[in-house]
């Protein structure tokens, strides 16, 4: 490689990383604004114009937040809602996806396509009808009022994800187990599901995030503040006249920490889930 060629390629590298780091920095700004504000004392957070760097950073807010807000309760509720949605969705999706992957029957195509359409049917345009149904079912102010609709709207992703994956598992494996006298349920839980792990992890992560992140259902169906989740809790702290920004941003930081841990460990599965359906192999 000539000197000039070398210079040009390293210049390109510098530019590439420069752009990437610039974009990353831009994207990180909101996180910086959020986190740095929580390090300020109350007097400084209401400084106009804002100080861009906390003058005397302290973690005081993270000690106060447990007693001054219901953050622990909200995180707990978020877990209940997310785990409940994951369990319900999987209970419905696994048999359906398995059945479609292993059988050819009249109505399969219709079922799979209608499921795909549900995916596109956003909850908010259905909220008036759902409101009626949830009240008719007497589910108001129960966790199920949130879990049931969340499961319905995550079901399509789960069915398609698992269906696609089940199809790649050779039937021969199951047949040899059947010859060995394994029951249908044993075959599913002992042989098929362990092999489906990547799709299961992607499905569970997607469903968990969906249920953790959405405000709409909790806003509409849970008026009892003892059942608020993190988004609803944060929303309830936005006052018309007065907002305790310091506490609210501290709650926000705490509310995303479990998610950051999830991302760090499961990034590949999340990406696999996001690209399924949009990028065909």
């Amino acid at each position, binding site marked *: 490689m000539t000197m000039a060629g070398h210079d040009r390629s390293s210049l390109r590298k510098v530019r*590439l990383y420069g*752009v*990437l780091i610039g*974009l990353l920095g831009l*994207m*990180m700004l*909101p*996180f910086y*604004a959020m986190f740095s*504000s929580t390090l300020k004392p109350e007097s400084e*957070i*209401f400084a106009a114009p*804002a100080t*861009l760097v906390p003058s005397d950073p302290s973690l005081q807010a993270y000690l106060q937040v447990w007693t001054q807000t219901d953050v622990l309760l909200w995180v707990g509720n978020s877990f209940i809602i997310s785990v409940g949605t994951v369990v319900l969705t999987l209970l*419905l*999706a696994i*048999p*359906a996806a398995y059945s479609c992957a292993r*059988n*050819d*029957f009249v*109505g399969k195509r219709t*079922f*799979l*396509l209608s499921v*795909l*359409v549900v995916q*596109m*049917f*956003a909850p*908010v*345009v*259905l*909220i*008036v*009808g*759902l*409101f*009626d*149904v949830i009240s008719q079912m007497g589910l108001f102010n129960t966790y199920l009022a949130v879990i049931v609709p969340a*499961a*319905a*709207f995550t*079901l399509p992703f789960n069915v398609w994800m698992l269906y696609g994956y089940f199809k790649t598992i050779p039937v021969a494996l199951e047949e040899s187990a059947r010859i060995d006298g394994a029951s249908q349920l044993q075959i599913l839980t002992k042989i098929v599901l362990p092999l489906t792990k990547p799709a299961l992890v992607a499905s569970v992560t997607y469903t968990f995030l969906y249920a*953790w*992140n959405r*405000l*709409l259902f909790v806003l509409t169906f849970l008026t009892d503040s003892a059942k608020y989740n993190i988004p609803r809790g*944060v929303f309830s*702290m936005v006052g018309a006249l007065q907002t305790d*920004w310091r506490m609210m*941003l501290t709650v*926000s930081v705490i509310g995303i920490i479990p*998610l950051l841990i999830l*991302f760090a460990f499961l*990034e590949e599965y999340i990406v696999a889930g*996001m690209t399924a*359906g949009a*990028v*065909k192999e």
Partner: protein
Amino acid sequence: MSLAEEYTETSDDSRLERGLAYVQRNSRAYLLIAPAAVFLLAVVGYPIIETFRLSLYQSPADSNIETFVGLQHYVEIFNSDIFYRLLWQTGRWVVAGVAGKTLLGLLIAVHLKGDIRGRKFFRTAFLIPWGIPYAISAVVFRWIEHPQFGYLNAILLKLGIIEQGIGILGNPSLAWLGVVVADIWIGTPFMAIIFLAGLQSIPQELYEAAAIDGAEKWHQFRYITLPQLKSVVLIATLLSTIWTFVSFDVIWTMTGGGPISSTATLVIHIYQVGLQNGNLGRGAAYSVIGFLFLFGFAIIYLRIYTRGGDEL
């Protein structure tokens, strides 16, 4: 083996046997999809029908009395100025949002495509805005754009761009931009990840051949990358259009549709009319109009998705 084939098999005994076997085998297949199918019918199908029905009634949320009014809601909606204003506000919200997400997503993806050290780190970092609660992102942006204490004003003042703090979210002509920025921030990661996956599926040989022919970078992008990426871009922008169209949490948390309804979109209006004001019938009529939009999007999506008779 198809249904027809199985039934046209020969001998009577075996036909009966095989017929029974078919039914038996399929009854299990149906039994396994039944819970999911029934659940979706109850939680999605029934509310859809209920929405259509309600849209023909005058139905206050706080009473059990419903009065049939026929198409009155629709007539009033189409004759109101609000509706056309909502369409315009929804349109600019979707167009600006999707354009921003697509361009930024493409920019990130193109730069992440090559042999990048620490790509996993970058990819994870760029993913975060997509995966955290919309309401949290919304309050953070609300804080950044705060008229007195916000970071944005502090930066603009420092740079000398403005002389006095501006209240973006309180200004009817600026507020929607203040909200759309947050929505773009949230929606860009999805686009970047999809585009990245699409870019990585383009055969490297195409670029090598072009390089031998002396094609410049821009030409490679224009004549190889874009055409190869076409279907991915199509699907991603369509999905993004749908999600931006129905985006609720961000707007609701940042402005609640205000000031003076300037950030209200169709779905925000559904919520305001149907649930906040408790006019279920009118809200349902607006929802049906929302259905029609989604239905249009869904048809386009299914067309693209099942194009070329791909097997399900």
